[in-house]
């Protein structure tokens, strides 16, 4: 057990990686055990509105008379899962497209990359809205699917270029020489070698997903029945927290998003730095 913890700890390279891990562990803890920690139930609206921070309400209350701290804690769970799951979906699509395009080359690559280029031209937000109208409901799951299925473009590109440089490597040629199938080469030979890049990308898309969720909620396209950092911020803005000097309603969600993503980015950067140091390769 100790060993596992130690191995896990050292898997996060450098000071940055470890700092990131600590931040992330904190949020994970809140996300997983928040229900027990939160002082008041979710969506409980019984308090006076606009109470400034006090011992009863560490982060005050909002215009509806909800305890902001409790909202933040419940919001962590949503934002956490949106980030993780949407990040995973993005990664699966991005990695598949990237590896196939990078490995197969030829018209497959051409067409995949042209599609990516085109999608990059159209504002993702518009695509998200359009996609939203095709889903049966606007729950957290839909947000995840929408974000996950539309944010793989940059990742696909990055994985592709990485795969292309891997393809030049001797071991790919050697695998072909030996008569391995393309699928085996792609996913058993190349894939493990670009894992750090994938991980670093995964980290990035996860933060992108958290930010996208916040953006969607801010534009009023999030899941209204659930609490997330984005919806808290959106309501704070819509209900004019600025006017009430209610910084306790505006600062926490923004800072939470920032720190959460910061943790991820630190980890990703740690991984990448180690990878680069090992390879002397900065072309990512």
């Amino acid at each position: 057990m100790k060993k596992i913890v130690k191995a896990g700890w050292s898997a996060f390279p450098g000071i940055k990686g470890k700092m990131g891990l600590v931040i992330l562990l904190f949020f994970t803890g809140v996300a997983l055990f928040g229900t027990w920690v939160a002082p008041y139930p979710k969506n409980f609206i019984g308090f006076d509105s606009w109470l400034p921070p006090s011992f009863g309400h560490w982060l005050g209350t909002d215009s509806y008379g909800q305890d902001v701290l409790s909202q933040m804690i419940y919001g962590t769970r949503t934002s956490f899962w949106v980030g993780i799951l949407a990040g995973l979906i993005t990664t699966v699509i991005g990695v598949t497209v990237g590896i196939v395009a990078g490995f197969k080359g030829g018209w497959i690559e051409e067409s995949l990359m042209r599609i990516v280029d085109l999608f990059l031209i159209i504002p993702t937000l518009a695509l998200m809205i359009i996609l939203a109208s095709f889903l049966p409901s606007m729950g957290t799951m839909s947000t995840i699917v929408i974000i996950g299925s539309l944010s793989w473009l940059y990742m696909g590109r990055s994985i592709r270029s990485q795969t292309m440089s891997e393809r030049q490597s001797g071991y790919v040629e050697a695998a072909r020489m030996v008569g391995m199938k393309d699928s085996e080469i792609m996913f058993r030979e190349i894939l493990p070698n670009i894992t750090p890049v994938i991980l670093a990308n995964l980290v990035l898309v996860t933060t992108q997903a958290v930010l996208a969720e916040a953006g969607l909620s801010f534009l009023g396209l999030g899941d209204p029945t659930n609490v997330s950092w984005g919806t808290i911020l959106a309501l704070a803005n819509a209900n004019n927290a600025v006017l009430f000097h209610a910084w306790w309603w505006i600062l926490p969600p923004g800072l939470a998003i920032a720190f959460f993503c910061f943790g991820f980015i630190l980890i990703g950067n740690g991984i990448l730095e180690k990878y680069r140091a090992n390879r002397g390769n900065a072309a990512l």
Partner: protein
Amino acid sequence: MSKPLLHVNELEKVFSSRSMFRKKQVHAVQDVSFTLEAGEVLAIVGESGSGKSTVARMLTNLIPATSGDIVYNGESLRTNRQLRKKLPTFVQMIFQDPFAALNPHHTIGYIIGRPLQVHRLTQGDLRSRVLELLRKVGLSPEEDFIDKYPYQLSGGQKQRVVIAKVLGLAPKVIIADEPTSMLDVSIGIDIMNLLLDLKEKENLALMMITHNLGSARYMADRIAVMYAGRVMEYGPAEELIQNPQHPYTKLLLYSSPDPWREQTEVFEVVEAQVQDASGACCSFHNRCPFATDICRTKPVAIAQLENGHQVRCHLYA
């Protein structure tokens, strides 16, 4: 005489990089023919970009030939799909860079064993077969190596692993594309010795690509000198080294450092851009101190000298 193990006839490769508006063509290999028998070593020498690797890649079907024929045991690679499928068990290649040729994420055991599984070559215990292969290439104690990862090995050991992997498929022909150029000389010579021993033991045909004439002489029974995609001179190794005929071969020999040799005449070196093989003239004419008008205007044919020594030069026409 029965069919040769490998017969290559007028092999040609044209790379065309198709951009949207223009087609660009590179004649990487043209009019290359030779044969290879079991137990024989053929060395291909030539400067960088002369098409050596391209020939090797065509022989192993990594890239298709543009024209010409590759015949293994009388079966043509071009027409025989069956052959293409089982080609890995017939011809194998050793790459230049042992550091890159091993996937850093697999153990040595996996790397050597996986091809055996792909081609269903082991009925019995995979592990014992891998151990046997490791022993064959002199990596002992074998048990130590089988679970190691490539980064735990030195360059020479890696190249041995590559050889072990290749041997596992029990090919009849092994093509070694500059197998020692990334290694230190002292270790490279080891690898060359190993290849020679294996050739003897397994009765392999070996094709060795190098740009070091010394290594070619050391290994080969016959040498082919390539320049700009064509074979310029072809013949028994010792004879070719001691008695070069083609000006390009002479130039190569002259340029190779050898502190022990008696001083020979100074060779007039003409510097110029290497020409594409497609030219309708001798592609070496612009660097050749003996070039005459005919070299610049007429394509060259191969001249046969004694002992199977061949030269592609107007001087011998």
